[in-house]
């Protein structure tokens, strides 16, 4: 795997309507959402989309070793409103493992301003990764339509990006920042078979959970809805 010369790609996504990235471990029938996808969601979206563009063999052999190990930074939109919605959905009945229809509650988010995904990629793979980034069409559920407006070579500003609580700077003014659990790949050596599991094969969980903090401060509560505004950790 070539890592000698790396560059940052920054992809801006316009999210025209609502989207819903479920917080890991929150119930599927009462789902809480995060204001943007987490690092594991980004890596999985890269895998899924690159299979669409280049086919499975190339992704498995060439892109996957980079996708599992690359630095990923996520800058949330400037403003994010989150409100709960009651929806009808299918859920798996525990005892019989059949699908039944039931009302569920799921939060939906609406954003203003682009959401930016930063990837640190080898220079030689800049073009394929740019094409994959441009092809990602939704975040969270399928109704969370997204469109990649632009891709630039630009490094992230860490104080504007989602950050693991373990790496949270000590000197930050106290604010009601949004925080929740997110998933990330367990380590940079996660195997392809762990991410694409087959029945009967006992693989380790490729994901680990961690608490993350968003540079988004609560600005307003309106009924059951909440509005978050991007606030740099450095301000």
């Amino acid at each position, binding site marked *: 795997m070539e890592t000698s010369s790396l560059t940052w790609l920054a992809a801006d996504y*316009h999210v*025209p*309507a*609502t989207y819903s990235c479920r917080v890991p471990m929150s119930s599927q029938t009462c789902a809480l959402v995060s204001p943007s996808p987490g690092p594991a969601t980004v890596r999985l979206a890269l895998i*899924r989309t690159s*299979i*669409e*563009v*280049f*086919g*499975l*063999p*190339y992704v498995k*052999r*060439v892109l996957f070793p980079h996708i599992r190990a690359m630095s990923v930074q996520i800058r949330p*939109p400037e*403003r*994010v*409103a*989150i*409100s709960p*919605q*009651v*929806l*009808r*959905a*299918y859920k*798996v009945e525990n005892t019989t*493992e*059949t*699908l039944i*229809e039931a*009302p569920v509650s799921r939060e*939906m988010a*609406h*954003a*203003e*301003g682009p959401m930016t995904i930063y990837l640190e990629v080898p220079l030689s793979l800049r*073009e*394929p990764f740019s*094409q994959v980034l*441009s*092809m*990602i*069409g939704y975040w969270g559920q*399928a*109704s969370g*339509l*997204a*469109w*990649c407006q632009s891709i630039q070579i630009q490094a992230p500003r860490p104080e504007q990006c989602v950050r693991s609580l373990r790496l949270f700077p000590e000197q930050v003014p106290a604010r009601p920042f949004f925080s929740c659990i997110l998933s990330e790949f367990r380590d940079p050596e996660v195997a392809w078979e762990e991410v694409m599991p*087959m*029945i*009967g094969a006992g693989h380790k969980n490729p994901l680990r959970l961690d608490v993350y903090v968003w540079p988004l401060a609560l*600005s307003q509560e*309106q*009924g059951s*809805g*909440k*509005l978050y505004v991007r606030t740099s950790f450095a301000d």
Partner: protein
Amino acid sequence: MKKQFPSHIYELSINVRATWQAQSTSNAGSNGTNRLMPRRQSLADSTETDACSGNIAKHAHAQLAAEYLEAAGCSLCPACKARDGRRAAALTDQPDAKNLSIEWIVRNCGLCDTHGFLVTAKNASSDGSTEARQRLSKHSLIEFSFALALPERHAETIQLVTRVGDSKDEGQMLMKMTARSGEYAHCVRYKCAGIGLDTDKWRLILADEEERGRRHRAMLLALRDGLLSPQGALTATMLPHLTGLQGVIVVCPSTGRAPIYSALQDDFIPRLCALESETCIVAPFETIDTFNAAMQDLIEYTHPALPAACQRPSESTAFARNARDQLA
């Protein structure tokens, strides 16, 4: 000017501002009261607006697509024939369920192929009475956003209606329902290149191009009808009045994502038109008849493209060719 669409389409998006009067097509339940709550969504500009869920639009599209698929002679699985919303997942109750495979479902059901399905994985029971089951799934090829009312351009009227209770003893009961009117921003994306494919591995299963074309036309016909004749909840007594439809159809002829841009923005039509290029064909429309004419062209003259990974080397994109060359 009439827009010339390419003969093969990879993906298309429809970005519309639809004006509906007196509708209640998507609601948030009664919360234990005698009032049916309208669906509301907070927006990032700190306003709260009326909304219609994408689920209900997708559900209505699937019902209509099933009818068009049957009319075109496309096969449906037993679950979709009975209009079971679980689609292929409903077949797990059948005696020959262990023979279910992604190949069988994609080949034999136009609706599971286009609207997607999920057969959940299951572990074998410890006493050996039930076998393990592999997860089978296909992501939907058509995706609907929430329809969001423009914050300054929607209104709501509470209507008092009577309903007969569940039993004779309950008699007649009073209910409050809302009739909502406004201009709604709505986006739809349809990835036609995925027809007949296992989209987890982007592997072609259905090589019959005529059948792929029939499924594609059924999807477009249902999409056209869904926008020209709104469907959803409570349409038996509150069928919405459609009084305006303007927007943009964006078509990608080869591998690419068709741009979507919210009609909540006043300049969404010029912004999308400015994206026009060889790989992004843009067709704006201002009225229902120009929308219908554009859809008719798509229905009559277009065919789903094949994704780069499934094409012959001479047809594939430069990126996919390079990828193959590197592997070789």
